[in-house]
């Protein structure tokens, strides 16, 4: 039996402060070899600091970081087998696209002929064949993004770090690049660690993700688990839209004072007389806002028991008639869709 590969990246109790600010606070996690791993959180939550610690631009104040089983304490960035795609792409403006892509090979003294051949292959892989002689300034944002990717991948790193790589692109291009990046990762089989503040991006692309807040890990897991089973109030609110029901309201609705969250799409609007099945709960209220979203309509319902719940009703099919603000409403949902919060 082959020995199990060590984790691509392992954080053990890592802390890093900047002045009085704890950027990350005793953070521990493992990234498996070949995984597409996302670090998700609002700005200032510590996700970029984690990435910079792996790249070697920062050193931890406490704790250890291992890359493929080897501690990287005191190892400068230029001696680490990881490469980074920067948020602003960081392309060298005084070099052509091809020179940018070849940079890592040139530094490693790879002969010019092989350099050119491999840069050509890379540019082809990111669909920029023939643009090698341009300057970065002559390229569009999406093209620059691809150059940055080619420049990082040409060194065949064991881990590729991506710092909000799609943040500067417009929506359409971003969605297209999400698909391409994911495909590229499968093709090259390199571990990707991907920093983003966009929960949709993290959910759609990653194998597993971490949700950060204030320098601490809120939850680690695969996207479906993070979405379906948010462990904390923060995760429930940050990843997707969720109703957070505090202990007091929970007692009035369910009889138990256990705070929980429930997704708006899990709640249905039903007729007053409709029977409520086993394991289901119901509540009455008044619709205070109705927002038509195209594929669905989002209602805000003021509950008679106090508090508000968001309800997402898909358009067409089983959906009843559109309801207006001010109408009374009866809600029902299944108890098993409660996600208890700590």
């Amino acid at each position, binding site marked *: 039996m082959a020995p199990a590969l060590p984790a691509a990246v392992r954080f053990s109790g890592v802390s890093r402060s900047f002045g009085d600010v704890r950027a990350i606070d005793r953070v521990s996690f493992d990234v498996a070899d070949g995984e597409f791993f996302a670090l998700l959180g609002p700005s200032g939550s510590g996700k970029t600091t984690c990435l910079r610690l792996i790249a070697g631009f920062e050193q931890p104040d406490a704790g250890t970081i291992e890359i493929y089983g080897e501690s990287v304490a005191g190892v400068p960035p230029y001696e680490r087998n990881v490469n980074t795609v920067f948020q602003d792409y960081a392309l060298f403006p005084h070099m052509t696209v091809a020179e940018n892509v070849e*940079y890592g090979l040139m530094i490693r003294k790879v002969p010019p002929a092989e350099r050119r051949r491999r840069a050509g292959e890379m540019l082809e892989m990111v669909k920029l064949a023939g643009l090698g002689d341009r300057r970065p300034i002559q390229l569009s944002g999406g093209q620059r993004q691809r150059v940055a990717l080619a420049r990082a991948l040409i060194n065949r790193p064991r881990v590729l770090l991506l710092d909000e790589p799609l943040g500067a692109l417009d929506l359409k291009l971003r969605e297209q690049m999400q698909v391409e990046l994911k495909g590229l990762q499968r093709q090259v089989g390199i571990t990707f660690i991907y920093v983003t503040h966009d929960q949709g991006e993290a959910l759609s692309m990653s194998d597993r993700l971490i949700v950060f807040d204030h320098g601490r890990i809120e939850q680690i897991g695969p996207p479906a688990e993070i979405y379906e089973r948010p462990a904390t109030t923060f995760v429930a609110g940050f990843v997707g839209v969720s109703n957070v029901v505090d202990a007091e309201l929970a007692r009035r609705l369910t009889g138990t004072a256990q705070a929980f969250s429930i997704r708006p799409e899990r709640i249905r609007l039903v007729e007053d007389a409709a029977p409520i099945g086993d394991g289901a709960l119901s509540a009455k209220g008044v619709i205070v806002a109705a927002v038509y979203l195209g594929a669905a309509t989002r209602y805000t319902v003021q509950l008679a028991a106090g508090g508000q719940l968001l309800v997402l009703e898909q358009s067409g099919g089983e959906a009843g008639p559109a309801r207006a603000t001010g109408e009374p409403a009866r809600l029902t949902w299944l108890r098993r869709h409660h996600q208890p919060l700590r």
Partner: protein
Amino acid sequence: MNPVAPSTLPVGPEASRSPLHRLSTVLYLRPTLLLMLLLGPPLLWLGVIYLGALAALLVQSFFYIDDYSGVVVRRLSLATYGELLTAANLDIVVRTTVMASAVTVAAALLAFPLAYFMVRRASLRLKAILYLGVVLPLWSSYLVRVYSWKLILAKEGIVTWLAERLGLGWLLEAVLALPGVGGPSLSTAYLGTFLVFLYMWLPFMVLPIVAALERVPRSLLEASADLGARPAQTFRRVIAPLVVPGVVAGSIFTFSLTLGDYIIPGIIGGSQPFIGQAVYQHQGTAGNIPLAAALTVVPIAIMAVYLTMARRLGAFEAL
């Protein structure tokens, strides 16, 4: 009930009743007219006073002086340029150019580490203090500073005193004994002239390099390290090429200021003149305006050659 009151601003022809309003409207609708009004004065200034004077100078340099009467002959000729090529005048040109080059190179070598520290390492507060330290000398009188240097560098001055106190009097003696740059004391040696030029023009080198370094984002340096470059390689491949335009801008100042100055070498240094002093003598006491003009064309020609070379070497590609 409407909580938002309707606008009371006049709309349509009513709005253009006041002359000021009408003027705004005219300029808003005709941006070219506005541009011409704004650019007219500076363009006139540049065109007439700068380029016009320069053209007059160039024309003067093609006149020549009649050896017997001492009167300027207003006929185009290369006679004055021929005079420029005499040994004495060539000597002046070479001396000045070598001095200007030495001052420029030394200023760049001193300014770069300082600028780098200011931009990449210093705290905001320290950076402000250093900025002030660099530009503060420019606020005080140029002449006072030159004469202060005369005292500092004199045989009885603080440099000699300090060298002797430190037991380095022999070193100062040895330096002053160097042929060409030495002399009886620093204040009468070309080395002294060099030091004062360097002191005077250093801010003009520091500031453009600081500006150039500030335009290099930190992420470029990180990207270079990330791709395997050691700091020395990052310096050579990324920082240096991106900062060259700043160094060239600074060297234009240090080089041309040294080429044109006539006060510093007149107060500190040896007895042989620099271009500035020669121009001053020819256009003043000697009344040889054509030769003064031809001597002035020399720095212009040198700068033109220098900038062409810099461009050929790709100094401006990063701009």
